[in-house]
């Protein structure tokens, strides 16, 4: 049971909020109308629309772009899985303590330093063209495979550092508790540290995933036709930039679910644990 005073207050707040919703709606409509009018009546608009937003060309090039995007997607999924596995391995190797593991730690650190510094495009050329040129037996020759290997090598270095940051952010008291229970290093990592570390760095991991979505297209320098290359082919023959605009939009659409997935996962993780 609420008092009359409170009832009045609630009524007032309700009417105020109704008013602000209407105002927000009206102002959005007016703003949108003004923006659209301003853009479409400006002198250069027909030329811009023809050059960047040509519906006919967009429709015509869409199948080729989707074909290319399908290649991007396949490379993306396979590479991401491999990257996560390799990066986790490297990060964990760097946590091994004791002099006997020194060469392993040094190798892991060296790997990270080298592949984080090496430009991806150089790595692509070295592995995509240079490696097969050596004609050593057992080396694959498929440009998509080689490009994928280059992507995995370079990105694992970045993601390994993300994992390492997560591992180091787990409070030392957790390690003390695990140690006091008698858990060895491997079990402490697997059961106590990594689950917490991975949850903490999920936003950073998903960030790198979105970056990978775009870098996947670079394998096109090795000859495979991905969405960007498909756009380039049609754009260069028609002198119209609409294919690029459409390809760009496709990539943006691809990135949106990843962003929302990241939000959902971290919300669920923080709801489940206070850490």
């Amino acid at each position: 049971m609420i008092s009359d005073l409170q009832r009045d207050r609630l009524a007032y707040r309700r009417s105020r909020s109704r008013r602000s919703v209407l105002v927000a709606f009206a102002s959005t409509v007016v703003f949108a109308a003004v923006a659209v009018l301003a853009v479409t009546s400006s002198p250069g608009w027909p030329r811009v629309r023809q050059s960047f937003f040509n519906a006919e060309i967009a429709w015509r090039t869409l199948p080729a772009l989707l074909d290319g995007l399908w290649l991007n997607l396949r490379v993306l999924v396979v590479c991401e899985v491999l990257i996560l596995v390799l990066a986790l391995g490297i990060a964990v190797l760097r946590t091994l303590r004791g002099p006997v593991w020194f060469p392993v730690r040094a190798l892991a650190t060296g790997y990270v330093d080298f592949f984080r510094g090496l430009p991806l495009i150089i790595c692509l050329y070295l592995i995509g063209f240079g490696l097969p040129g050596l004609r050593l037996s057992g080396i694959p020759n498929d440009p998509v495979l080689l490009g994928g290997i280059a992507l995995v090598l370079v990105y694992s270095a970045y993601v390994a550092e993300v994992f390492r940051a997560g591992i180091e952010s787990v409070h030392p008291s957790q390690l003390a508790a695990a140690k006091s229970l008698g858990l060895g290093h491997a079990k402490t990592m697997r059961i106590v540290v990594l689950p917490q570390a991975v949850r903490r760095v999920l936003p950073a991991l998903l960030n790198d995933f979105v970056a990978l979505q775009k870098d996947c297209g670079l394998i096109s320098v090795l000859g495979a036709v991905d969405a960007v290359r498909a756009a380039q082919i049609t754009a260069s023959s028609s002198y119209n930039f609409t294919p690029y605009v459409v390809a760009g939009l496709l990539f943006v659409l691809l990135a949106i679910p990843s962003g929302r997935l990241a939000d959902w996962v971290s919300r669920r993780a923080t709801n489940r644990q206070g850490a």
Partner: protein
Amino acid sequence: MLKKKAVMAAVALLAVSACAPVDETPTAAGPATGAACAKDKLATLAAGKLTFGTDEPVYQPWFVDNKPESGQGFEAAVAYAVAGKLGYAPADVVWTRVPFNAAIQPGKKAYDVDVNEFSITDERKQAVDFSSPYYDVAQAVIAPKSSPAAAAKTLAELKKVKLGAQVGTTSYDAAQRLAPEQQVAVYNTNDDAKAALGNGQIQALVLDLPTAFYVTSAELPDATIVGQLPRGEGKPEQFGLVLDKGSSLTPCVSGAVDGLRSDGTLAKLEQEWLATAGNAPELK
């Protein structure tokens, strides 16, 4: 958040379309000669100098040692010959480097004339001006002797082969016209394509015929020319000098090229630089 994105997008669009386009006036058809093309009347980028553009790097037999200034190589020689016809001494010729794809984009140019094995096509004419043609070109297919493509004698056999070509070129168009069973591999440059050919990542490469001869004789000795490809729509493919769309220089430059053809200079230069481009079988 969405509203903010909408605002930014609207502002960007406004900025772009608010720049009123400068409409380019169409050129008068046909080459012109005589007084209208005197050196002092030509509106070149730099007064008294003729600026030629070409790619970085450039290859034989079109240029030698990547040095257009030497005048060595078929296209370098043609460029200096055209300049001479317009009254420019070799010292008045300036070279600038423009990537292949950038040279034929619409928009302002950093060169007066670009010379870089550009075939005259209707699509490209929408974006740039071409001079009269200075060379008739054929597309050819090269393959390592060990490749299955090397033994191909007909177009039908070539369809089964993994082909490659540089992006945005008429060589790529010619490869596409074959309707091969495997997707054509597309490379940023012919250097990348040649590397792929050497690795066996593609089985054959489509290039223009003179380049094909140079590559198989000097660069990839164990590659061979499989044959010439038929022309698209039966029309001969021809190289033309590229100028900015609606450039005032176009009639004069065309006139110069026509002059070189009629006085036999073009034929002489072809003989000097492209004679080794012998005959390759025409594939059907």
